[in-house]
């Protein structure tokens, strides 16, 4: 069981990281989008491997099936074969990349230090099989208010998007 689990995990994480790197470096936006989708799917796989089926489904339906479709849609509306031939990285790319790496290194150092010093407890063996029900309970009892607020946020975002994208408001 553990073997399968770890195989899945390392496979998915390798996939995720690889396609993330590709996503950032691709010249063709559609390819980038496809690689991002791959990353997301890999992440979804990791969720599944973490026995969070509901989040897996949410990830797939919302992220892959919703948001990314929106991205692809917009990419196709905005024809980009012009910008595809231009330089893809801005003037500050070298500094920026370096600094980002520095930031990553810092966090890595922090994690490493934490790993050695304060030992994170191992994972629980198993959480309740009825993951969906558990999430639902938490969502509708403990996190009712944030849930409502999130829905308001969505409404506002919808209106904003409509106003933004409309030709004649």
């Amino acid at each position, binding site marked *: 069981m553990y073997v399968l689990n770890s195989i899945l995990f390392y496979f998915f994480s390798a996939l995720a990281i690889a396609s993330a790197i590709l*996503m950032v470096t691709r010249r063709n936006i559609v390819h980038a*989008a496809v690689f991002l989708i791959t990353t997301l799917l890999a992440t979804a796989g*990791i969720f599944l491997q*973490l026995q969070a089926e509901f989040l897996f489904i949410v990830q797939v339906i919302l992220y892959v099936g919703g*948001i990314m479709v929106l991205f692809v849609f917009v990419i196709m509306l905005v024809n980009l074969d012009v910008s595809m031939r231009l330089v893809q990285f801005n003037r500050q790319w070298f500094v920026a990349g370096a600094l980002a790496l520095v930031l*990553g290194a810092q966090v890595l150092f922090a994690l490493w230090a934490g790993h050695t010093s304060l030992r994170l407890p191992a994972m629980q063996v198993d*959480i309740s099989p009825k993951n969906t029900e558990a999430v639902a309970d*938490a*969502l509708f009892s403990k996190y009712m208010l944030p849930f409502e607020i999130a829905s308001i946020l969505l409404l506002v975002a919808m209106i904003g998007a*409509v106003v933004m994208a409309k030709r004649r408001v």
Partner: protein
Amino acid sequence: MIPVDHYLFLSLALFTIGVIGVLTRRNVIIMLMSIELILNAVNINLMAFSRMWGSVDGQVFAIFIITDAAAEAAVGLGIILAFFRNRETVLADEMDILKW
């Protein structure tokens, strides 16, 4: 069991890649996608911790983050569309009207 740290390393890697993307790519759409990547990294952390403590709170927060991402994508892409209509470009360093 896979130690939690590995999840953290994974998410760190994704996060860094995302930051690099946001900082260096000229194409606004790819910047947005990188932001999605960052959010994703955060999600991984949350899931890992939720699994670690055996409580679903982390997952709930992940759901909120995904909601947030949806909203952000919708509005951001709307803005990009509007901008493209006016300026015929999606390059971040041509959007420097923020200066004034």
